């Protein structure tokens, strides 16, 4: 251990502000990059849900059309 | 394809570009006026004292040259892209890098070469000691072809975007830094009375390298852009 106490560690021989600023910013930047990745994934999931709903709507409409034409066939026959 | 017909295609592309440019003279003249105006602004901003003006003269002239090269970049491919000429160039039997080289050549003739001629005027306005004039012109002579070639790469990449102005400067200006450094240092050396031959040779080497490689990059960029 190069430091005897917490105070000394934070003080860093008078350079504490610079050292911790550098480390803090590094951590922040990497954290932001990671969070951005997570947010992207969340957005993708929302998009996927939207797409799924769209496909379900299309499928339902096609089903209805099929039923209707079937009904029409039945009534004419 | 034999050399004769390639040569003819190259000169045809160049003659056509020249003919078009000479009918739109304002497009050619405006970037040059821009340089003169920028140069005029500096004495007004930092004061007309010869010591400070003389110190910054080379830098100002060169930075103005870089910016004016960007200003004139639209002329390279914009109209060709809009009227369909670019498609025809891409489909031409001639190698596209060769045609790109021709277009870079015309751009240099109309934007780089006039800057060399304008240099003494700018040097005079900025009170650059006369010892540096020759070297300044020499650096512009070997440096502006690099400007034209690199600008063509950027213009080729952004031509299909329509609003490429700010983007283009973002892409290109960092790549111009070595040019700026060596050109300024050459003039500095000339002013100090030492030899500037090293830097000028270095710039010449850079120019040859750029002219050798850039046409291929321009061709690749244009192929992407006609998509």
């Amino acid at each position, binding site marked *: *251990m*190069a*430091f005897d106490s917490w105070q000394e*560690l934070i003080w*860093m*021989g*008078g*350079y*504490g502000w*610079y*050292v911790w*600023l*550098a*480390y803090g*910013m*590094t951590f922040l*930047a*990497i954290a*932001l*990059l*990671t969070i951005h*990745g997570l947010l*992207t*994934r969340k957005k*993708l*999931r929302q*998009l*996927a*849900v939207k*797409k*799924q709903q769209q*496909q*379900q709507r299309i*499928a339902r409409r096609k089903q209805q059309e099929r039923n209707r034409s079937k009904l029409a066939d039945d009534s004419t026959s | 394809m034999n050399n004769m017909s390639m040569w003819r295609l190259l000169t045809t592309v160049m003659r056509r570009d020249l003919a078009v440019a000479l009918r739109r003279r304002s497009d050619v003249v405006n970037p040059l006026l821009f340089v003169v105006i920028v140069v005029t602004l500096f004495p007004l901003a930092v004061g007309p004292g010869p010591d400070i003006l003389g110190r910054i003269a080379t830098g100002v002239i060169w930075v103005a040259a870089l910016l004016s090269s960007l200003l004139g970049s639209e002329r390279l491919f914009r109209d060709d892209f809009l009227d369909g000429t670019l498609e025809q160039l891409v489909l031409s039997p001639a190698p596209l890098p060769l045609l790109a080289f021709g277009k870079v050549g015309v751009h240099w003739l109309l934007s780089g070469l006039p800057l060399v001629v304008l240099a003494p005027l700018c040097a005079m306005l900025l009170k650059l000691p006369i010892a540096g004039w020759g070297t300044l012109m020499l650096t512009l002579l070997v440096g502006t072809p690099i400007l034209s070639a*690199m600008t063509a*790469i950027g213009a080729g*990449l*952004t031509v*299909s*975007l329509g609003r*490429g102005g700010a*983007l283009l400067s*973002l*892409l290109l*200006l*960092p*790549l111009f*830094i*070595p040019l700026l*450094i*060596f050109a300024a*240092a050459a003039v500095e050396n000339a002013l100090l009375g030492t030899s500037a031959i090293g830097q000028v040779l270095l710039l010449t080497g*850079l120019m040859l390298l750029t002219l050798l*490689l850039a046409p291929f*990059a321009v061709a*690749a*960029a244009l192929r*992407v*852009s006609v*998509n």
Partner: protein
Amino acid sequence: MWKWLHPYAKGEAAYRLLGHWQPWLSGLALILVSVGVIWGLLYAPADYQQGDSYRIIFIHVPSAMFAMGAYTGLAITAFIVLVWQIRTAEWAIAAIAPVGAVLTFISLFTGAVWGKPMWGTWWEWDARLTSQLILFFLYVGVLALYYAFNDSRTGAKAASILALVGVINVPIIHFSVYWWNSLHQGATITRFGDTLMPSSMKMPLYISILGFMFLTAALIVYRLRNEILKQELHRPWAMAQLGVENDHGV
């Protein structure tokens, strides 16, 4: 019948492969960076000249190294894009560039903060910082060009051309900037002669460098997987990966 889907199927394979790597890369990155940084901050001795301010080196040097390393990776990927037209490589352009840009930013920021106690100024036109700044501009250019196009394929190709032009220029820029620096500053400030470092300082630095290597790789892989999902969202496998049941054709 949909034979043409074949080239697209690679997206899924790439996604799965990267998925296998992801935990290892992230885990190693976390462990090694933690060890390197804590060792460097707590246990490494203070420098006899710079005191404790030198401890910034344990992030500054690795981030600067992999800022450059990522650009080399970007250029290699760009080459693959232009020559073999592999779609995963196209997506990798979008994944590598932001990570590289952030690493460059970190190295710039830590360099500036380190410079303040050393040189008494936040920004010194030191050769290393200046060329790092230019590298940052190159990254920004590639990103801006990529996102300027509506079509991601076109964007990836254009950005690839720019990255290759950039990588040819990087050595020239480095050379010119170092030369320029030697011209304008009689005495160059050397921060740390690597050879003079005692091993008690070197060890944590090496561990940190190794950690940043895995960190860079992990971040890139994570973004690349996101990018693959984004581009392949219309496919059932991608939707399944996101936990959305795809019942198309029901």
